[in-house]
């Protein structure tokens, strides 16, 4: 039987290319996790999505221990997340595959790695990609896919929906911001930029409370909000 060797193949671009160290420092391996107290309100859709915590998966951090032969004992980090009522999202969890309005998705193996020019591993999520321009790495982020990922955690039942109490807490924080901004509007009644910031804050609060997109909330606020005087003069206040 004749034996033939393997022909040498040209290296792929990703094998050849290393990220410039200055723009892409070595970063530790991580797992995504959620925390029942941390949620993001999505202004595009008006929905509450779980905030994605990047949990370090490194020996020496939060009780993580290296195992002989290169493994990692993750009991400590998992315990920290559990003690806060959170969930560690394992990259191989089959519930990360599915279908939504945009089509099929597969978020398994959501941690990517590339080497930088110093030969160190840079860990990042699959929602990030790098473009090398000159001697720097420019990072791009796919927000749409990250939102799909967070939404999939809810639809698959991996993470329970946001608690009303958390929404109330976030609304209280937003109220504080609005109060501070109202004071600034009062100090600068002719400043359209500050007035506009106040309007956005008020619309955001409305969107958070009623789970409607920011644009819709803005329309509602504009219909109801008191008018801010663009050209105030002495003694004239609306």
């Amino acid at each position: 039987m004749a034996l033939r060797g393997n022909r040498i193949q040209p290296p792929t671009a990703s094998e050849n290319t290393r990220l410039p160290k200055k723009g892409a420092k070595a970063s530790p391996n991580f797992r995504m996790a959620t925390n029942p107290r941390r949620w993001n309100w999505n202004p595009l859709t008006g929905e509450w999505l779980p905030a994605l915590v990047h949990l370090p998966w490194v020996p020496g951090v939060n009780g993580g221990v290296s195992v002989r032969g290169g493994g990692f004992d993750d009991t400590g980090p998992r315990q920290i997340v559990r003690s806060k009522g959170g969930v560690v999202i394992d990259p191989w969890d089959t519930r990360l595959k599915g279908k939504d309005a945009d089509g099929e998705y597969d978020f398994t193996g959501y941690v990517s790695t590339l080497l930088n020019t110093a030969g160190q591993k840079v860990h990042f999520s699959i929602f990030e990609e790098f473009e090398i321009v000159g001697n720097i790495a420019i990072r791009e982020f796919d927000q749409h896919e990250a939102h799909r990922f967070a939404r999939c955690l809810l639809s698959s039942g991996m993470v329970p929906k946001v608690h009303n109490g958390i929404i109330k807490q976030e609304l209280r924080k937003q109220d504080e911001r609005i109060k501070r901004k109202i004071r600034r509007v009062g100090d600068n009644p002719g400043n359209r930029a500050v007035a506009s910031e106040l309007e956005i804050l008020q619309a955001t609060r409305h969107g958070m409370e009623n789970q409607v997109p920011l644009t819709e909330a803005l329309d509602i606020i504009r219909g109801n909000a008191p008018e801010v005087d663009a050209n105030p003069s002495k003694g004239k206040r609306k």
Partner: protein
Amino acid sequence: MAITYATEGADLRVAEVANPLLHLILADLTDLYGVGMVNLGDGAGSGSSTDNISKLDLDDPMTAPAEGAAVSATDPATASVQVSIARQALRRDITDLFAGTGTSAMAFNPALIAQDAANSIVIRRTGLVASLFSSVSNSVGTTTVDLSVDDIYDAMFQLHTTLNQPPFFCTLYSEQINNFQSSLRGEGGANQFKAVTAEMLSAKGPGFVGSWNGVDFWSSDQVPTANGGADSAGCMWSMGAFGYKEAAVASMLQQGGSVISSVPAESAAWIEVQRSPDTGSTIYVYNYYTGVVEIEDDRACAIITDR
């Protein structure tokens, strides 16, 4: 005819020589082990690489029982976290050809190796501490929105709400610091940022960027990402939020003759040199034993804003 650089110089001069200056490229040498961190002691000779840190809640008020009534017993709440020591290391291999062809200006000399080792430790320590920021439960800021003064106020209010006492420490990603200072420009009144001075730098070390409303601010390029990479997870905390442990194992290794006796016994880090005659090189290995842990969640507040 004259002897010129252009002609005779081709044989009698060299193309370029090493300038006595060895310029070190910019590096972030912020050391967060000295910033509001609890030192959990020395793990050497303790019987385990992992320590259990017990937590006890003594926040129970007295009650007023009726006259003659027995007081029922109240147990304090307890909890615990674990901190594990892990080996951190960096290796530099230097070939004899490289070392032997160097002039004094080019040498990878002991002073430079010591500085290299010290830098590697500082950068690693800060990376370990910063990695703890991601999983803090309290958080302020808005995803994909630039950090503003409001976010810093929110973090301070959050820490006050959870019973924390100043001083507060805050470490942000460089872009977050820029956004904060940009937002401060729009603020009026007494909200002035006290920028860092030479005296402050010498007292607080590299990475310190200034104080504002009693909060000390540090900048680090090792602040982790959050929300899949959209945001940076900076953090404000008070003393007791995070802790570190080191292990001065050098003395144990000296007993076994593994480490040369010139390493101070209390060292948690040291440099070892190994000859590799078969490859014609010298190997320098910097070893350091440490671990970090989040001790109490309520003493910290993550600041999650656009990266």
